[in-house]
């Protein structure tokens, strides 16, 4: 069932924020969104999804780039078929440079665009509820829950030292 209420807690101290996350997780609340001024890899254990598949996309792109480079170089050499000094037109070693550069290029471009695609970043205003303080020194905790659990969540947020606690309907 879709949660109908959103409880927002704003923290000044990262330790309190982490403690609130831990307690909410213990209570089985899953629809939690956090906003932090820096990336906190250490807090990932409080979320159901860990890591990111971006590196696999980058690896696939790297392999693709390298293969395309070798196909391009060997194909070009075979097309012209110029034999110099009795050697075969295509020689692998010099093509390693081109292969390496295209490998890096494809992986880099893919990694970059994946930040936008997977992080759902687009040129628009920040999501509703976002507070510019989250980019300074405050930590935001948005908990979506059914109406009967609002008081439970509010109590946790207040008990863990939230500076502000709001309750509002989810859009």
């Amino acid at each position, binding site marked *: 069932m879709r949660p109908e209420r959103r409880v927002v807690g704003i923290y000044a101290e990262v330790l309190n924020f982490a403690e609130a996350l831990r307690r909410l997780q213990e209570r089985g609340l899953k629809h939690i969104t956090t906003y932090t001024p820096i*990336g906190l890899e250490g807090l990932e254990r409080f979320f159901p999804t860990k890591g990111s598949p971006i590196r696999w996309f980058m690896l696939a792109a790297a392999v693709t780039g390298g293969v395309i480079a070798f196909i391009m170089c060997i194909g070009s050499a075979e097309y012209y078929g110029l034999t110099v000094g009795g050697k075969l037109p295509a020689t692998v070693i010099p093509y390693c440079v081109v292969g390496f*550069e295209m490998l890096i290029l494809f992986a880099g471009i893919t990694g970059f665009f994946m930040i936008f695609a997977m992080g759902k970043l687009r*040129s628009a205003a920040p999501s509703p509820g976002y507070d510019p303080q989250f980019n300074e020194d405050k930590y935001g905790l948005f908990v979506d829950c059914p109406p009967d659990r609002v008081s439970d969540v509010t109590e946790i947020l207040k008990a863990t030292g939230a500076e502000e606690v709001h309750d509002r309907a989810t859009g």
Partner: protein
Amino acid sequence: MRLALRDYNQAILNALFRPPSPGYWAAVLFCFTVIGWGAFCWGYQICEGMGVIGINHPIGWGTYIANFVFWIGLGHAGTLISAILFLFRVRWRNAIFRSAEAMTVFAVMTAGLFPLLHLGRVWIFFFILPYPNQRHVWPNFKSPLVWDVMAVSTYLTISILFWYAGMLPDLAAARDNSTGLRHKVYRFLAAGWTGAHEQWRHYLRAYMGLAAITTPLVISVHSVVSFDFSMALLPGWHTTIFAPYFVAGAIHSGLALVVILLILIRYFLDLKLVIRREHLEQAALLMILTGSIMGYSYGCEAFINWYSADTFERQFAAWRSLTGWPVAYWLMIWSNVVAPLLFFYRPFRTRTLPLLILSGFVVFGMWLERYVIVITATAHDFMPENWSRYIPRWPEISIGLASIAWFSFYFLLYSKFLPVASIAENKEPQVEQQLQVVTAE
């Protein structure tokens, strides 16, 4: 003095939003004027032909190629500081990597101009790109010049992406604190960044991935540039030490320029609390290491010239260092190897003036090194009747100076329109220190 988290936003965004002084606009105008003069010289060269510059048989590569190698080299410290030190979790990079990355992007943009200038018929530069046409894909992929194009264009692309990706959280901070047109621009650039867990989760992995691929890239780029020389059979060029020697030199010169730029930034943008003396000191210490690698490389090169028992190598090395170019050669050794050793003495690496002077020596010494490498080998090849000399003429000297203005112009614009230090990453050590207690549980 240690800043609170919010103070980082304030200090860095104040530097960004403070109205530029008249001196700033005068510097921009001066750079623009010098760039205009450089453009005129280029136009003159196009109209009159390549004869107006100093290159002639047998010296086919002059200051344009020396400048190309020099500027590419300057771009290397940015990636070293941002990517390699990031992978090693070196904390002092946080305060300085943004400007180092900017320096990389602008230096590579500057470097990219010189092969175009050197081409002469610049309007057909795209012939070297591997685009499909009626002749199929036709660049010679066995040529170091084609490798160069691939390496430099890849490096520029990845450097720009890495720079921009690192800036996303800070652009969001700038968006949140700006109004009017600036707000619209930052809103577009920040792409809706909020710092939500889902964004950080993918961002951190991608950033790590970009750092991981940029590290071998930076090693490869100057190695490929060195192949332009070492693949040729000329004494002075044809040596296997060139790749590591070029990479070390590139990082050496780049670090020196980073120090110079950071000193100017912290003074003019009043960022003394963000970019602290210890950051400059660490960069100076790193320069002792790179300078020592340069010293080893010069020594190794001289030893191999002697040990090879090759007549041409021996006579070339003796000519370059003793009779032909002794002033340039020994000045290069002093600037690149001896001068950085003065950083062992603490006041030289903690005080602004000695740091500026010694870093200036290193930048100059590395330019001299590129110049000596590029010019001397072709000027003094196998056949004595072929030996010649090279004197740069006013169009190429002007264009060389205009390249400094071109670089400075972009750096000046950057310093007032983008956050010059990372807001998010400067906060990391403080927050992570507190969090260690929780995550260790």
